[in-house]
């Protein structure tokens, strides 16, 4: 299948009440993890995304908008996100990603991140078969207790093998 043919209309806006599929899933927040924002990591990330913006360097540097993906370095065996969901990672696509920014994130910040499954629902694929949509949400709170950002991912499990 091609992702462009099967992508959801607005999965981020689907309400739990409209969800079909998996009888029940755990919507509660998982155990938080601590993520320290390091200057070297910010520099490495900015270079990797080919962004030479001076805002990501020097004193008072900011973290680039998609830097929160580096939470992967701080997670052992997945966080909160998809508890009790048996997902087949060979058939899993990252369909959408959204970030909401409430406070700047800078080196030296100590973020507390907690994740949850926000919604799970099924849709019919255009080429037959069911597609399972899982929306996870991660909340990042800084050392001052302020929510700094939210990250929301839409994962799509296809019925068959994922093809280009």
């Amino acid at each position, binding site marked *: 299948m091609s992702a462009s043919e099967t992508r959801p209309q607005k999965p981020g806006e689907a309400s739990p009440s409209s969800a079909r599929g998996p009888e029940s899933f755990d919507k509660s927040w998982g155990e938080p993890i601590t993520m320290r924002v390091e200057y070297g990591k910010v520099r490495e990330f900015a270079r990797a*995304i080919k962004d030479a913006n001076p805002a990501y360097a020097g004193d008072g540097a900011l973290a680039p908008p998609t830097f929160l993906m580096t939470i*992967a370095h701080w997670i052992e065996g997945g966080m909160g996100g998809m508890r009790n969901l048996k997902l087949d990672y060979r058939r899993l*696509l990252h369909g959408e990603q959204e970030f909401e920014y409430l406070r700047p994130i800078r080196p030296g910040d100590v973020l507390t991140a907690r994740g949850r499954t926000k919604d799970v629902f099924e849709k019919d694929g255009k080429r037959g078969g069911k597609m399972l949509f899982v929306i996870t949400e991660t909340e990042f709170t800084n050392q001052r207790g302020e929510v700094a950002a939210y990250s929301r991912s839409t994962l799509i499990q296809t019925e068959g093998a994922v093809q280009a």
Partner: protein
Amino acid sequence: MSVRRYFQDVTEGEELPPVVVENLSRTDLVRYAGASGDFNPIHHDEEFAHVAGQPSVFGHGMLTAAFVGRCVTDFVGPDSLRRLKVRFATRVWPGDTIVSMGKVTRKYEADGERRIDGEVQAVNQKGEVAVSGSFTAALPSRG
């Protein structure tokens, strides 16, 4: 790069200057894997990619999303971004040239801020959309 842009300077329909990344390399993918911590082998292990039925390794969707993010932050400034949302469509392959572009769709006030919404997309050298999305930014006001 980061020219301070004021709310009054922006018009609905205005296009964001495109950001071009030429000839994406496997090294670029490895560098992003290390920086992000996303070591899904489909993005760096050619043999794994072949076994998975892919012609080669392909790019992390979030790397392309970062190019789109740069297109937005070059325009509004990194500290002005309030929301960025991307949807992944066509995959990005080694050798691809990715052009990120966008436009302002709406100017308004909300939560005591002067904000703009916009659309963004990243296309490959064949014109296929790799990533599409939207953003919201809060801009400073002149006077």
